[in-house]
C-alpha cells in the first residue's frame, strides 16, 4: 500500500532523505526507527503530502502522492508528532468536521464519531472544548480523527510521547489490531520496546538513508555478536552504519522480498 521509490528530499544543500526505497503491504505494521534528524519525519511528510520529493516518488495504493494528492489523502489517516486541535471546538464537533471533509454524510459522520468515541474512550469529555484537554486526551482525539474515515493506511509519528501507561496500552493494542484487520500501519517511533512488541518489520534510518529493513530476527542475524533487545541491536546498527556510510556510503539492507520470505 505504501511505496517509497527512490524518494529523495533535500533542503538546500542538505539531504534529509536519500533514495528511500521502502514498501509496506496490507495488513502490515512497520516501525520506522532512527535518531533525531535521521529523516523519519521528512519521509512521513512526503507520504502525507506535506512535502514533495525532490526526486523519486511516493505512492499510496495506486496513487502517486504528488500527482493525486486528494485521492491519496482520502486513503491515509495521519497522526502527527505535534497534533492540532481546534481549541474552541469539542471533540465531537471536531470529529464531525473531519468526517464530513472525508465525504461522510451527516448521518454516517455521527455514527463514525460514536464508534471512535467508544474505541478511544472519549465519552466523558467529548462535549467539552478541546482547550481544556490533557495531553493524553488530545492524543486520543487526534487518533480518533485520523481513523474517522477508516483509512487504508494509518501513519503515526511518535504516538507515545507524553501518554500514560493505560493510554500506551490502548494505542499499542489498537495499532496491532488495525494492522491485523488488513490495513496498513507505518509508525515512526523512538520507543524501541514498543516497536519490538507490535511491529511486523522495522525500518531503520540513519543520516538520511535507510540502513535496515526487515524483521527483528533478521536484524539479529545482520548484527552478529549482539544479543538481547531491539535497543542493543539498533544502537549497534546505527553506530556501525555511520562508520560504513562515511567510508563508502554502502547501505546494509535486506530487501522486502527477503523479509517476506522469512
Amino acid at each position, binding site marked *: 500500500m505504501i511505496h517509497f521509490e527512490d524518494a529523495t528530499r533535500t533542503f538546500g544543500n542538505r539531504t534529509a532523505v536519500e533514495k528511500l526505497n521502502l514498501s509496506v503491504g496490507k495488513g502490515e505494521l512497520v516501525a520506522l526507527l532512527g535518531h533525531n534528524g535521521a529523516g523519519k519525519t521528512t519521509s512521513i511528510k512526503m507520504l502525507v503530502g*506535506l512535502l514533495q520529493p525532490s526526486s523519486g516518488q511516493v505512492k499510496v*495504493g*495506486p496513487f502517486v502522492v504528488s500527482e493525486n494528492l486528494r485521492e491519496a489523502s482520502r486513503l491515509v489517516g495521519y497522526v502527527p508528532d505535534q497534533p492540532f486541535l481546534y481549541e474552541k471546538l469539542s471533540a465531537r464537533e471536531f470529529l464531525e468536521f473531519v468526517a464530513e471533509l472525508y*465525504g461522510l454524510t451527516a448521518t454516517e459522520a455521527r455514527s463514525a464519531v460514536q464508534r471512535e468515541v467508544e474505541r478511544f474512550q472519549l465519552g466523558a469529555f467529548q462535549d467539552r472544548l478541546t482547550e481544556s484537554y490533557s495531553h493524553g486526551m488530545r492524543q486520543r482525539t487526534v487518533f480518533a480523527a485520523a481513523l474517522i474515515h477508516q483509512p487504508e493506511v494509518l501513519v503515526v509519528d511518535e504516538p507515545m510521547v507524553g501518554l500514560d501507561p493505560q493510554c500506551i496500552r490502548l494505542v499499542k493494542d489498537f495499532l496491532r489490531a488495525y494492522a491485523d484487520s488488513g490495513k496498513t500501519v507505518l509508525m515512526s517511533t523512538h520507543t524501541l520496546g514498543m516497536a519490538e512488541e507490535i511491529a511486523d518489520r522495522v525500518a531503520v534510518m540513519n543520516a538520511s538513508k535507510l540502513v535496515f529493513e526487515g524483521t527483528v530476527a533478521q536484524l539479529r542475524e545482520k548484527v552478529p555478536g549482539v544479543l538481547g533487545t531491539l535497543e542493543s541491536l539498533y544502537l549497534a546498527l546505527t553506530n556501525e552504519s555511520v562508520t560504513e556510510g562515511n567510508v563508502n556510503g554502502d547501505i546494509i539492507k535486506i530487501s522486502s522480498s527477503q523479509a517476506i520470505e522469512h
Partner: protein
Amino acid sequence: MSANLESESSASDYLDQIERLPTHEREGQLFWKLRLRESRSQLRHLFANARMRTSLVISLSIFFWVGLFVLFYLGFDFVVGQVGLPGATYHAQTVHFVFTLFFMSLQIMLIFSSGIILYGGLYASQETDHLLTMPVRDSRLVLYRFQEALFFSSWGFFLLASPMMIAYGVVVTAPWYYYVYLPWLMISFAYIPCVLGAITCLLLISRVPHLRRIVVGIIALLVVAVAYSSIWQTLDINDADLLGAAWFKQTFRRFEFTRGEWLPSTWLSNGLLEAAREQTGDPGDLPWFQSGKYLIVLLSNALFLHVVLLWVGGTVYRPSYYGLNTRQARETHVHMAWIDRLAEKLLWFLPRETQLLIVKDIRLFRRDPVQWSQFIIFFGLLMLYFANIDRFRQHRQDISVLAWVNIVSFLNLAVVGLILSTFTTRFIYPLISLEGRRFWILGRLPIERDSILWGKFLFAACGSWLPCAGLVLASDVMLRVSIQVIAIHQFICLLLCIGLSGMAVGLGATMPDFREQSPSKIAAGFGGTLNLVLSAIFILLTVLLTALPCHFYFMASESRLQTQMVPPANLQLWLTLGLVGVVMLAAVVTIVPLSYGLRAFRKLEV
C-alpha cells in the same frame, strides 16, 4: 507493465471512496459550519469568562466610532459651509479630493495587511498544516484562509470609513438610497485590495520565497517615502499661505495620482458622491443610476478578482508551500552581544544573580522580533509625529498658542505613557506566566525568589525609561517649552515608567496563567485587561494632577498675566501639591501590586 495493470485495477478499488469526497461547494459549507461553531463557542466564552474585557472592547469601539462620527460631521459641516452643498463645483472637487486620498491610503493598507495576514494563515499555521494532509482542494484552503485575512484586515477600514460616510450623508442630507448603497460599495471596495494583497502574497512566496521579507520591506519603505514627501511638501509652507487658493490648487495637483480612473478608491468615491448629490432638473440625470454603475464596476471587479484568486490559489499555493518549507534552514549562532556586555556593566551595582536574570530577559527580548518590531513601529511613529510638531514655533507671543503648546506637550506625555502601558501589558505582564513551564529551573536555583521579580521589574523600568524619556524630550524640544517644564515632564516620565512596570510585574505575579503559552493570550485575559485599565487610569491621573497646575503656573508667568483670582503663590503651591500627589500615587501603584506579587510569588508552586 504488470505493475501498471495492477495500479489501474487498484485505482478502481478506491473509486467509491474517491467519488464520495465533497464537492467544492460542500467543502465551502463545511468550512463555514466550522467557522460558525468556533465563533459561537468563542462568543460564549467571551461573555462567560471575559465580560470585563468584552465590555471594555465594545464600549471603547462605540466611543471611538461616535468620536469619529462627531469629528467627521464637524469637518464636513465646515467644508459645506465653505464650498457649498453637493452639486456646487468646489464641493465636488473638495470632497472628491478628500475621499480619493482617504480611500487610496486605506486601499494600500488593505493590500499590505491582507497579504501579511494571509501569509501567516497559509504558510505559518498549524491548522493549515493539518488541513493540507486532508483531501481539501488547495483553492478552497486558500479561500478559507483569505476570508479570515479579509475580515481581520478590513474591520479597521469599516470602523474608520463608516462614521465618515454616514457623517457625510447626514451633513449633505443624502437621499435614502445613499445609505442602501453604502455597505455594498464599501464591501465590494474592500474586497478588491484584499484580493490583490492575497494574490501578491501567493506570487511572492511562489517566485522569491527567500526574498519575501526584503521585497515587502522595500515596497513598504517606498510607500512611506512617497506619502511622507507628499505630506511634507504640502505642509512645508508659511502659515499665511496655508489653506489659500494657491496652496489648494497645488495640493490638488500634487495628489492627482490618487484620482486615477482605474483605481477602486476612485470608483468608490465617485459612487458615494453620485449617490449623495441631489437630482438636477434634467430628467435624464439619475444620481441613483450613476452611483449604481460605480457599484457594478466595483462588484464585477471584486468577483473577477475572486475568480483569479481561486485560480492562482489552486495553481500556485501548494508548490509555493513546498518551496518555502524546503529552503535550507539558516543556522543561527548566538553569542554574547555588545548590548549584553553593556547591560552587565550598567547593572554593576546589582547582585550578580539579578544581573544574570536581567541579561537573560534582554536576550529574550532582542531575539524576539515580535517584541522589538512593535516597539520600533510605535515609538518610531511617535518620534515621526514629534519631529513634525514645530508649527507652534511661529506666533510665540500669542497667548492662545502658548496655551496650546502647554496642552499639546502634556498630551504627548500622556500618549507616550499610554503606548508604554500597552507594551507593559503585552510584554511585561505575561513574563511571570511564561516562566511557568520553565519555573523548575528558576525555582531550584540558589537565589531568592524575590530577586527574580525584582529583576523583571528593573528590566521593565530601566528598559522603558530610556526610549520614553527620549521621546518626551524630543516633543518638548520641538515645542520649545521652558526648561522647568522639560524637567517636570522628565520627572513624570520616570514615575510613569516605574509605576507601569511595577503594576505589570506585580499583577503578572499575582494572577499568573501557567497553562497558556501565548503571551498575547495571557495579556488578553482578565489580569491583562485589568492591568491595562489601571494603567490608563494611573496615566490620566498623573498627567491631570500635574498638567493643570503646571498649565496655570507657566501660563501666568510666561504671559506675565497677573491673575487676581488666583495669586502666583497659590499656583506654586498647587504645582508642588500636584507633584507630591503624583509621587505618592506612583509609590502606591508601584509598591502595592509588587508587594502582592512578591507574596504570591514566594508561595508559588508549579
